[in-house]
């Protein structure tokens, strides 16, 4: 595992010295501060920040991971020509990118909230937003790494990774809505819970909305979510689902890398 640590440090420093990490922190900090300052209502500003967290952070994670992989192929060749297992090499690269993304969210959202601290009403909500962003970054970075390793060329790799983001962020909700409209005569509220567990963006959205205490806006589904995700089983199931969303693509890209020709 010493090699994972060495590669992680190198990739992390490489990312830290590039402009994108700083630009990302500034974007998050300025948006957070501006939304809190100009919206007037803390709850409303948190809903807007939630949209940034659940839509923008997966997109940035997807793009940054795919771009790093495809732009650093010579560095990856050099690493793989050393006495390092492929599992350790790719784990190190993944952690180097993912930790940069997570720290950017922590400092970006944290800085924005800190500047507007006088208007922050709930620290628990701020922490939920930051931890949701961190989880989504870990998940989408692992997914993008899996897709990049599985793809033969840059265009297909980045294109497919973006499609996965679009599917999770937009198309999935559309399909869910269609399902609920088509089967509105049936008691399918519980299905919403299962469908939410299958999409990390939805899961994060529900978590944040439950913290916002505006689940009543979601009607009966909101009550069902409150009842399920408020219990120990619900928290355990959703934490397990998020963990699986990180672990499955992570194990997937490690396995895929073993068979790939470079």
């Amino acid at each position, binding site marked *: 595992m010493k090699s994972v640590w060495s590669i992680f440090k190198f990739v992390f420093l490489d990312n830290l010295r590039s402009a994108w990490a700083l630009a990302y922190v500034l974007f998050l900090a300025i948006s957070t501060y501006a939304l809190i300052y100009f919206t007037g209502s803390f709850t409303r500003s948190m809903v807007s920040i939630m949209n940034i967290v659940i839509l923008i952070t997966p997109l940035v994670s997807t793009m940054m991971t795919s771009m790093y992989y495809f732009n650093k192929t010579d560095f990856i060749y050099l690493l793989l020509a050393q006495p390092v297992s492929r599992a350790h090499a790719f784990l190190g690269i993944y952690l180097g990118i993912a930790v940069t993304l997570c720290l950017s969210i922590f400092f970006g959202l944290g800085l924005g909230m800190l500047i507007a601290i006088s208007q922050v009403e709930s620290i628990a909500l701020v922490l939920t937003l930051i931890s949701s962003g961190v989880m989504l970054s870990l998940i989408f970075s692992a997914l993008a790494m899996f897709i990049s390793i599985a793809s033969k060329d840059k265009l297909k790799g980045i294109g497919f990774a973006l499609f996965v983001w679009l599917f999770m962020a937009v198309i999935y909700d559309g399909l869910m809505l269609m399902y609920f409209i088509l089967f509105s005569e049936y008691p399918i509220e519980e299905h919403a819970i299962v469908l939410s567990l299958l999409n990390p963006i939805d899961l994060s959205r529900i978590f944040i909305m439950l913290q916002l205490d505006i689940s009543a806006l979601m009607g009966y589904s909101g009550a069902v979510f409150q009842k399920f995700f408020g219990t120990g089983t619900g928290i355990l199931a959703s934490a397990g689902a998020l963990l699986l969303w990180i672990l499955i693509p992570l194990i997937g890209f490690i396995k895929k890398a073993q068979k790939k*020709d470079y």
Partner: protein
Amino acid sequence: MITLSSVSKRFGKNLVLDEIDFTIGEGRVISMLGPNGSGKSTLIKCILNLVRPNNGEIMVDMYRSTDVEARRLISYMPQVARFAENISAHRLFSLMGELRGDVRDPLELIRYFELEAHVEKPLGELSGGTRQKVSAVLAFLFDTPIIILDEPTVGLDPISRVNFKNLVLEEKAKGKTIFFTSHIMSDVEEVADELAFLLDGKIIFQGEPKAIMTQTDQPTLEKAMAAFLKSKLKA
């Protein structure tokens, strides 16, 4: 010593390496020649386990090429030296040292390739030739018994090229096994004990440079290689 036994590699319908049987003897300096797309880089990548052969077996000393330990015996200089853009050469040398553990002091090599003014700059700011020198330092940074160089002198200025060849000759004198690809015949003539010629995925010649000059009745290696290639393409 590196031994390839019946190694084949296919990319889709394209057979790049066709049942290659090839030995790189201990302490020998062997140059792999062949036209562009003949499979030279793929063969090197197979030895380094970057590419997995469809058939056959590659042994590096007592280890299979798939074994991590096989790569501990090899230093490698890639054809293209575009590494991490925002990190300095110094940091890259440290990473390689951490990964391998048997690192020499890079200062001597940094001075040798006149890189003192560049080692702390981000790699992305360096010219192609300077990056190639960084790559050369990486190849000689470790005291490994085998050195593999893929088109090592491309992009180097004449002084660095001479320095590089002298370094190869020094390593050769220490009894190291050196395997390299090149299109520059004067480099090959100066350092190689043996040539291997790869065409359409097959090794069609392996022997001393003099042998091919005698066979083709040509005064220089460059002319001999051109005549040899023409005769093979006609056949």
